[in-house]
C-alpha cells in the first residue's frame, strides 16, 4: 500500500482553502466523470482518485487527520494511543507494494486511514440512493465460435455469469447485462455490465458484415476446361462447379453460405469466392512442347 498525495491529485497546494479545493474538484470531475467518458477505463480510474481526494480534503476532520499524519498514516492509530497515554512507542516502517487504487470505489490507503468507508457513510454523506457503476468488459471470440450460438461463463468481479452469445455477433458489438455492474449506493440498484466483443479472425475467410469472402486457388486446366472443386465453408465442405474458361479474379456468390445474421435464426449472409488461377510450374519437356503447339494455334 502506498501513500497517496491527495493535494497532488487535485492539483492544489497544501494551503488551499475549501473553495479552492471545491473548484479544483469540480473542474477535474467535469473532465473525468464516467458519464462523460463512457468506455474510458483510464478516465474512470482517475475519477475514483479525484473523488477520493475530494472526500478527504473537503471534510475538515478527515483533512486534519490526513495533514497530521501524512506519510505516517500507517501508524496514525498507534500515534493517537501513544499521545493519549503519553507513552513512547517506536515502530519500524513496513514495506508495501500495492499500487494504491484498485477496482473498488476507494483505495486501500483510504480504507486504512478512514476505516474503509465511502462517501455517504460518514460525515457529509446524504441518504441519496445511487445506481451502481456500469462495468465495461471485453470478450474475445474466434470467428468460428461467433458462427454458432453458444453459452459461455464469464467471471466478473468474482461472480460467475453464464451468458448466451447469439450466432453472428460482430466485432466491436456491445451487449448489456442488466444489473451485473457495480452495487448501488445506499440501497440503489446495481449498474449494468457492458460486454464488447472482440472477434479474432485467423481463418481463410474475411468477414464483411454477414458476408464472407474467400480466395480459392484454381488450377489452370480446371479454369480452362471447367470442372468441380471442393470448397471449405464454416458450415462444412461444398462442391462447386467451375465453368470452362473461368478467368483469374472471377467472383462467385454462394447465397446463404456466409455468416449467420445476428438474432435472425436461419438467415445467413453470402459467401463470395474469388478464383485465383495457379499456373503450373516445373513443366516437363512434353508439357512445354504441347504449350508451344497451343501458342502456335492461337
Amino acid at each position, binding site marked *: 500500500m502506498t501513500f497517496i498525495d491527495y493535494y497532488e491529485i487535485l492539483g492544489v497546494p497544501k494551503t488551499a482553502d475549501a473553495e479552492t479545493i471545491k473548484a479544483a474538484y469540480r473542474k477535474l470531475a467535469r473532465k473525468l*466523470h464516467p458519464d462523460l467518458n*463512457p468506455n474510458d477505463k483510464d478516465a474512470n480510474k482517475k475519477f475514483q482518485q479525484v473523488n477520493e481526494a475530494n472526500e478527504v480534503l473537503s471534510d475538515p476532520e478527515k483533512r486534519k487527520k490526513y495533514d497530521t499524519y501524512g506519510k505516517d498514516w500507517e501508524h496514525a492509530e498507534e500515534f493517537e494511543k501513544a499521545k493519549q497515554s503519553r507513552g513512547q512507542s517506536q515502530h519500524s516502517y513496513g514495506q508495501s507494494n500495492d499500487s494504491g487504487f484498485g477496482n473498488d470505489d476507494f483505495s486501500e490507503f483510504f480504507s486504512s486511514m478512514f476505516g474503509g468507508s465511502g462517501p455517504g457513510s460518514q460525515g457529509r454523506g446524504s441518504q441519496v440512493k445511487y445506481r451502481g457503476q456500469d462495468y465495461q468488459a471485453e470478450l474475445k471470440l474466434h470467428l468460428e465460435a461467433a458462427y454458432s450460438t453458444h453459452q459461455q461463463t464469464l467471471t466478473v468481479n468474482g461472480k460467475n455469469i453464464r451468458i448466451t452469445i447469439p450466432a453472428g455477433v460482430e466485432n466491436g458489438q456491445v451487449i448489456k447485462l442488466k444489473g451485473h455492474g457495480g452495487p448501488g449506493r445506499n440501497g440503489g440498484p446495481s449498474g449494468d455490465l457492458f460486454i464488447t466483443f472482440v472477434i479474432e479472425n485467423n481463418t481463410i475467410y474475411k468477414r*464483411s458484415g454477414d458476408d464472407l469472402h474467400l480466395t480459392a486457388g484454381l488450377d489452370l486446366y480446371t479454369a480452362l476446361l471447367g470442372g468441380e472443386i471442393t470448397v471449405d465453408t464454416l458450415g462444412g465442405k461444398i462442391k462447386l462447379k467451375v465453368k470452362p474458361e473461368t478467368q483469374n479474379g472471377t467472383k462467385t456468390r454462394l447465397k446463404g453460405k456466409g455468416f449467420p445474421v445476428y438474432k435472425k435464426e436461419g438467415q445467413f449472409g453470402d459467401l463470395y469466392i474469388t478464383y485465383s488461377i495457379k499456373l503450373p510450374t516445373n513443366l516437363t519437356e512434353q508439357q512445354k512442347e504441347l504449350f508451344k503447339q497451343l501458342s502456335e494455334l492461337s
Partner: protein
Amino acid sequence: MKTAELIPAQTFCIHHNIEFAFIDSLQRFGLVEIITEEEATYLPESCIPQLEQYVRLNKELDINMEGIDAIIHLLQRIKKMQDEIVGLKNRLSMYEGG
C-alpha cells in the same frame, strides 16, 4: 400489445432526493417524456437509466439544463462516430493482412 411500465414521478424524485421541477425542466428541453394519467405523473421505466444520468450530471457536476442538453447531444454524436469507426475498422480488416 406492449405494456409500458410506468414509475410514479414522485417516487423517482423521493428516491433521488430531487425536486419535481427538475423533471419538469427536462421535459421542457425534450430530454424526458412524462406521462400524465388522472392527474398523476409517471415516467416510462425504460427512460430511468437515462434520467439517472441527468441527475448525476446535475448533482455531481453542477451542470444546468442547457449543459445537460448539449452534453447528451455530443455523447450521442460520439457514440455514432464510435460505431462508425468500429464498422470502418471491420471493413478495413478485409483488405489488411493479405
